[in-house]
């Protein structure tokens, strides 16, 4: 065990990790940030997506040690300090882009990364970008709508 430090949601954080401790386990078990979820064991489901130095990363696909000194943002760091939801979180609520909530943290983190790279994506670009995030509840319809709306493209959101 060694102490591993990084900046998580804007605050310095330190916890013990082994050489084979995954970043997701470091966050969940080491720091108690259980908003990041584990939905598979093959790095496919995307429930554990966090931002590492501003990029979307599946936290089950890197070791905690590899993130030493990095700036990490998790779902817990997405809302304003007073609890106000970010635009993307608010859009997920407004458009019913979540049901059981398990894939949601990864979806929100992926969506935020997409909109940073591509502020006005097409519907197809949203669908393609979410290729690494599985959801079993929504059939993706309202997730895609939420992301389109969060990008300010309300008019491109399919009418019900």
């Amino acid at each position, binding site marked *: 065990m060694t102490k591993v430090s990084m900046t998580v949601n804007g605050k310095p954080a330190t916890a013990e990790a082994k050489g084979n401790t995954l970043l997701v386990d470091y966050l969940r078990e080491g720091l108690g940030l259980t908003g990041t979820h584990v939905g598979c064991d093959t790095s496919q489901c995307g429930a554990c997506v966090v931002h590492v130095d501003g990029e979307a990363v599946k936290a089950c696909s890197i070791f905690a040690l590899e993130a030493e000194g990095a700036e990490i943002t998790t779902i817990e760091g997405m809302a304003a300090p007073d609890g106000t939801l970010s635009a993307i979180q608010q859009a997920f609520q*407004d458009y019913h882009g979540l049901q059981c909530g398990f894939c949601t943290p990864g979806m929100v983190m992926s969506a935020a990364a997409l909109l940073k790279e591509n502020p006005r994506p097409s519907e197809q670009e949203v669908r393609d970008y979410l290729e690494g995030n599985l959801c*079993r509840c929504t059939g993706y319809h309202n997730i895609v709508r939420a992301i389109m709306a969060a990008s300010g493209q309300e008019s491109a959101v399919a009418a019900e």
Partner: protein
Amino acid sequence: MPKDEQGIGASTKRREDIRFLTGDGNYTDDINLRGQAHVVFLRSQVAHGRLRGIDPAAAEAMPGVIRVFTAKDFESAGGLPCGWQVTDRHGQPMKEPKHPILAEGKVRHVGEPIAAVVADTLEQARDAAEAVIPDIEELPAVTNPKDAASDASLVHDEIGTNLCYDWGFVEDNKAKVDAAFEAADHVTTLELVNNRLVPNAMEPRVSIGDYSRGTGEHTLYTTSQNPHVIRLLMGAFVLGIPEHKLRVVAPDVGGGFGSKIFHYAEEAFCTFAAKAINRPVKWTCQRGESFVSDAHGRDHVTKIELALDKDGLFQAIRTDTYANMGAYLSTFAPSVPTWLHGTLMAGNYRTPLIYVNVKATFTNTVPVDAYRGAGRPEATYQLERVIDKAAREMGIDPIEIRRRNFVTEFPYATPVAVEYDTGDYHATMDKVLEIADAAGFEKRREASAKKGLLRGFGINAYIEACGIAPSNLVGQLGARAGLYESATVRVNATGGVVVMTGSHSHGQGHETTFAQVIADMIGIDADQVDVVHGDTANTPMGMGTYGSRSIAVGGSAMVRAAGKVIDKAKKIAAHLMECSPEDIELKDGKFSVAGTDKSVAWGDVTLAAYVPHNYPLEEMEPGLEETAFYDPANFTYPAGAYACEVEVDPETGKVTLCSFAAADDFGNVINPMIVDGQVHGGIGQGAGQALMEAAAYDATGQLVTGSYMDYTMPRADDLPYYAVDHSCQTPCTHNPLGVKGCGEAGAIASPPTIVNAVVDALQRGGHGHVTHIDMPLTPLRVWQAIHQR
């Protein structure tokens, strides 16, 4: 928020979203108890074999290992119980072999737990589990439900057959059905497979057992759709723990779709082991493990025949199905291919004679049980596929043949023992053709053809039986449980309301919708209403959430309990205003005396109930809290019509789902936004079944699609936007909200819609020899169908 945006019929935003969107949810794996140990199960890697011995000594000597458990440790425990007994054609009970917690004498499917290693850390338990070497003499495996019927290899030697039951329904109709086939002008026959699926809720299962020597109380935290059912089954049948010493908590649960109804070995293990080692014991399922331990769904091999007269009117239906039970009977497995399947074979149609035969067999596969729709997708798929085939054979338009046969008068008693209370199948058919823009199909087909693609239009009608279920009826059919639901409505002194429901929400949004109903009934702000679920310690005995039953049965219980609360509150208000309770009206959170300007506020009455200084204590007890148990009078019958368009690339066989439209009649709707979402999700899963998902076993019983690398889950780029509508509403006639349930429709009705569309595309595209392709319609299967003449 104005009141009209939060009552019945409003698309109120979900209150549960805030915690899920901020990482503040509380899923079972988020819980860690002080001093907890971890368990890892050694699971069988062979599908079938004699278990000659297990040597745990090496594992027990490894660092951190507390104890290794095997079947010997569970000699005093019962097997995992089956909650439904089916009686066969000859009046004999089904075969019901023991389902042990850890394998006894034999292993019967890949993934069956053989031993359990409990250690201080998860890593230590994992390492030690690898050191437990079972001595297994491999035996031939059987995986296909039809092949199993030959009894060439017996899954359970002691019962001497792989046949669990041979069920005929309605047995008395058989001769008449056969005669109708003899006399028919036309008979259409279709053989098909309803592909085996893995439910794949995104949250893997987790169980944590805890025990207090001080109080003798057990607590189980578990990923369940029905904590009370788990408490009853595990306490009474497996471990012998009375309810008052056993608390089951299902906190936030990340999707279920049926797979979290059942009582699993791991739950009983963690509860048992926590007492045995006097420490909490936690198990977190890995995804690869859930593929071989969560109950699977579907897996029917069916031959269906439809007899018609010269006008295309249905005369009789005859079906012959082999249903896979897997290696053991899961909690509700026997009911799925029988009562949840045979009773729906009439569909939306006036077929006078129906006979359904189902042979359920044991195989060397993971147990199969209810998965979203449970029996009703299997019924709808075969019926709607054979109707499409018959229409084509007889030269009748597939929409027209359905319309000619629709039930139009209600109530309608089917020949398969259920009575539809209400519906309007022409209305949903009209609606789906409108929202699918059926009129514009030909233009779109021509545009596709210019790209070298074959476009097809698929149509489908469906009905399901939800709101499960009248207890006395299901008791006669073999259910070993009642299927009522419960609610306690507790009004606090300052007027806030807490609803404690036996239903469970794992994505359905009950915390929002149930509060909408109460807010509407009392006329208070929905924010004043809290909904509590998921903990046997603070909810009344309830049967949980599945079969689209929560609002129809759980909601009805809540309305009953709230009605009792309001009746009592009116008496208190009458006392305060010195008038008769009959003259009191409750509106907008205010009690007023009819015909006067006298009124008291909701909060004044609730305060009086708990501070009873001016109160008729000689006539009424203080307090304002009521419980109701609601047992439904009938099933509810959601129904509708679906349509979709596909493009098939004849060069590659690739199918693209271009559009999907759903017109559902769910009766009254509490929250349209949530209902839309339920339909979307069902369509997503149904499209997965139709186009890409399959739990595939090889001949040795290995699950070859045992991870997300192999089992194709639908992704965002596989699916289009859906057009959904539920404006055709014929309210349920026998529950207080007039609701029918909406959770399963999408998964039930979308697979035949999509397969019908693909066959239509091939037929129109010059491949008239293709009349059926078994799901999933992968590019390989479609290409082969095109080329195999």
